């Protein structure tokens, strides 16, 4: 990690707006649209962060620079974390998955139309710069792809600043698998649980995650395999491939006969981060896997969900998707 350490303390990064670039599948697009204007690009592709290795406690370390494609098709990932494989392959296109890296995937920026269009107001792109009632173009605008959960949490006045969603598929599975993000920075190495890596917009919608300045993701650690037999990533979208999720659900179940011993559920396409709620999951533990028992779990997961007009349908759609994905993971339903 010496090379990485040197890089993160290098002076070049102090200059305003330096950015790391790996696959560049999102950053380059954003630069073309003048949304990202880095003063300097630091190519990190030469860093020795390109293996997938077993770690102690039976887990697996996915280095940051391994491509999404190589990760999804890695034998150990396919055998031990089929949920992750399935999820990665539900995202983007083969071309993009060949270029995109695991580390970069965590830093995908939202697909919010207003964020992408510099002629439109956006608190994420230009925090505190925008006039109008909210400063967010999507609120009151065309918001079919936007968030229904966690949009007001942490705001001073209960008024949302941003209803963008975090678009990654991969991270939704990582949330269900309770991955840990390894980070190196000026103050050394640290680990961040995936659930604390991304954040809700609150009063600082410009911040997508909890990384500190100068920090870099070096790897994603997966804990010992779970949910090999009972898992599902259900992605609902406007076309069958190369489209971001309107709603997605990653489910992992530990079953004993037809009884649920443990469960993890993460939602994508509904919030500023992969959405998990342990209290909702707990409702299913010790219960028989039936539609009737899934329903309260979906109710609980979507508690407090708010629609903004065009996206209000997501509340009902997510509810149905959760029940379906649980049923599929429990093998009550076909997965086709």
């Amino acid at each position: 990690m010496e090379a990485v350490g040197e890089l993160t303390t290098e002076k070049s990064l102090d200059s305003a707006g330096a950015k790391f670039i790996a696959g560049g599948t999102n950053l380059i697009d954003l630069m073309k649209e003048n949304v990202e204007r880095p003063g300097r690009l630091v190519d990190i592709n030469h860093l020795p962060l390109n293996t997938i290795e077993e770690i102690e406690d039976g887990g697996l370390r996915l280095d940051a620079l391994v491509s999404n494609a190589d990760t999804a098709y890695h034998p150990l990932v396919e055998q031990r974390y089929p949920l992750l494989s399935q999820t990665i392959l539900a995202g983007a296109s083969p071309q993009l998955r060949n270029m995109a890296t695991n580390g970069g995937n965590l830093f995908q920026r939202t697909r919010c139309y207003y964020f992408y269009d510099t002629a439109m107001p956006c608190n994420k792109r230009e925090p505190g710069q925008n006039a109008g009632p909210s400063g967010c173009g999507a609120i009151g605008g065309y918001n079919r792809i936007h968030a229904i959960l966690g949009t007001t949490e942490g705001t001073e006045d209960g008024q949302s600043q941003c209803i963008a969603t975090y678009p990654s598929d991969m991270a939704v599975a990582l949330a269900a698998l309770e991955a840990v993000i390894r980070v190196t920075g000026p103050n050394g190495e640290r680990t961040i649980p995936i659930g604390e890596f991304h954040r809700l917009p609150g009063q600082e919608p410009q911040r997508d995650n909890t990384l500190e300045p100068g920090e870099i993701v070096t790897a994603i650690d997966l804990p010992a395999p779970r949910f090999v037999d009972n898992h599902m990533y259900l992605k609902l979208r406007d076309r069958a491939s190369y489209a971001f999720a309107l709603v997605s659900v990653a489910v992992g179940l530990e079953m004993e006969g037809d009884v649920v011993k443990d469960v993890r559920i993460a939602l994508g396409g509904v919030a500023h981060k992969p959405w998990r709620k342990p209290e909702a999951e707990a409702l299913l533990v010790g219960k028989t896997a039936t539609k009737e028992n899934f329903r309260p779990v979906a109710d609980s997961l979507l508690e407090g969900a708010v629609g903004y007009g065009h996206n209000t349908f997501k509340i009902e759609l997510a509810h149905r998707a959760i029940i379906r994905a649980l049923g599929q993971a429990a093998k009550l339903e076909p997965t086709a």
Partner: protein
Amino acid sequence: MNNVIGKPITRVDGPEKVTGKAKYAAEFNVPDLTYGYVVSSGIAKGKITHIDTTEALALAGVLQVFTHENRPHTAWFDISYKDQDAPAGSPFRPLHNADVTYSGQPIALVVAETFELARYAASLVKVVYDAKPSHTDLEAHLSEARDPQWAPTNFLKPLPPKPRGDSKQAFLDAPVQMAAHYVHGVQHHNPLEMFATMVQYESYGNEDKARLTIYDKTQGAPNSQLYVTQIFGMSSSDVRVVSPYVGGGFGSGLRPQYQLFLAVMAARELKRSVRLTLTRQQMWTFGHRPATVQTVALGASSEGKLTALNHKAIAATSQFEDYTETVVNWSNVLYPCDDVTLEYKLKSLDIYSPLDMRAPGGVTGDHAIESAIDELCYKLGMDPVEFRLKNYSEIDQTDKDKPFSSKELRECFRQGAERFGWDKRNPTPRSMRGEGHNLIGYGMATGIWDASQMPARAEAVLTVNGKLRVSSATADIGTGTYTIMAQIAAETMGMPIEDVIFRLGDTDMPLAPIQGGSWTASTVGSAVKTVCDDLKKTLFKTARKMAGSPLAKAKLEDVLFDDGSIKLKNDPSVAVSFIDIVGQNGGRAISETSTSLPDMLNQKKYSRHTHSAAFVEVQVDEELNTIKVTRAVSAIAGGRILNPRTARSQIIGGMVWGIGSALQEDSAMDHRYGRFMNHNLAEYHVPVFADIHDLDVLFVEEHDEIVNPLGVKGLGEIGLVAMPAAIANAVFHATGKRVYDLPIQLDRLL
């Protein structure tokens, strides 16, 4: 024999395309090229009060920033800005003045030594607006709709005829009625190739005159040439437009786009060659399929005879032009009725003018009428194919009750239904199920489009090597023009197709109309046939004059043209080869240029159309509402099929487009800003491979001696027309829910 018409010849331009040799407008290079980048307006309506280009101009390598304040003078009058496809009104003039009339309007052009520099400099141009409220929501302004102004384009895209009988009363009196309201959003063409122009600037004389060679993305090089010469007051001998390959058009290239104007303006001012390419986002800043709201009210007798036909449409247009398309007439071309009202109105909004987009108006109106008929059939308890046979039109009531030049639609129904297995349909909604949660739906619809022929010219040259070179300034937007024209020429001349080359897309070639309306096969094909027939006569005359010619006493009707020779019919061993004829001509190539004109006198007695029947199977998840088109059959009556391979490809393309149109395509506007928000191909969805399953095409036999000498009708649009209605009808059959608006995204079924 050289009978190649009707053979599945592979595309003659295929190798060029797959090896990357085929060059598109933005790929032509010249020394000392400069690069442009367009700055687009961020507001939909108002005035530019200040535009500051200092920072951009201060960068080394930035040559100029053109704005309304410093643009050169161009033609005064609207007429000079009218291209061949211009509707009534005042065409848009880039950088004309400080007014902003739609969001995304070009308001400045940066020209620099590199593309990257131009793009960066464009981001430094500061604009201050005095914004005014804009109105872009058609549904909010329906009561202000008005009649469109007439324009010459309405010869091809007729406005509705006068009402027939009393359709209001007939509707009230009808024992079976249906009425519904259909809303279509905006769609953008989005060909893969972005709009681009490269202007090669060459001065001559005392450096004060210039000759421009313009590589333009267009569906008609002559149209771009006309536009440039009129606006910039240039002689056509100084403006050559070249466009050998077009990376998709779908109608977007029927009118010159603003990058052509801007690139020519900049080249002339800077006396440099300029390349200007629009971005994908800027592909949402010009023509599009307009938003349309339709109402259909039908009445029928209890036996299933249509007794009242009301079809009304209101479409959006810009503040500066009355773009029109034929939306409602099709209903009455398809279904005869004594009491008919067809109505088409416009509402001007703060948007750019709409533009013909694959089956313009046709697919819009067809979706409404064919969904309405399906709904009526449910009320009647009648099979939708049976209804269509019972109400089959033998005359065109919208056009003086003329008979059809040919119409094998019955065969489309019969063969299409059989191939699809329509008889296995249980008509009750939600009655057919697939695996798991999948509901299965079968739907069908009729499609119709024009079979037009326009005037065109072509040149044919028998070269000194005995090869044939044929040319016409038409386009090949991926449709197969290169291939079918080579076939027509080869067969007409009696030559192997390998010895024939067809060229297009250059204003130095004989004039042809813009490539649209499904008329190129018919129009340019006829010109190619005519010029080859003329060339044959010349060759024959020359052959007869040869010393000791075995054909000296033969007449034209005594000979046949085969295998590169003229042979006596009754003794084919007596022959004179084309090569020898060239020799007789002193070793010089022999050429002819001919004009082909439609036989108006004969054609105007008939209504001329292509027809289709589409049968579609969908699977709809009853809880999640995801829709999959699992199977579709299109039966096409399109006259003579010149090449089954390229023809099938055309129809498949139309069917795929229909799936996108029905389920995905939607340029979503935020009406507070009058701006399309999903302006990129990640968020504006068109089908991907994973969306496309089993598509089947069949051509029914159709002979037509009226449409043109070749009997060909054109296939560019007909594959699309019936698909959205057939899909919508299948979705109803699967779910029992009738979705009237397109696209049918899953939330519309919730």
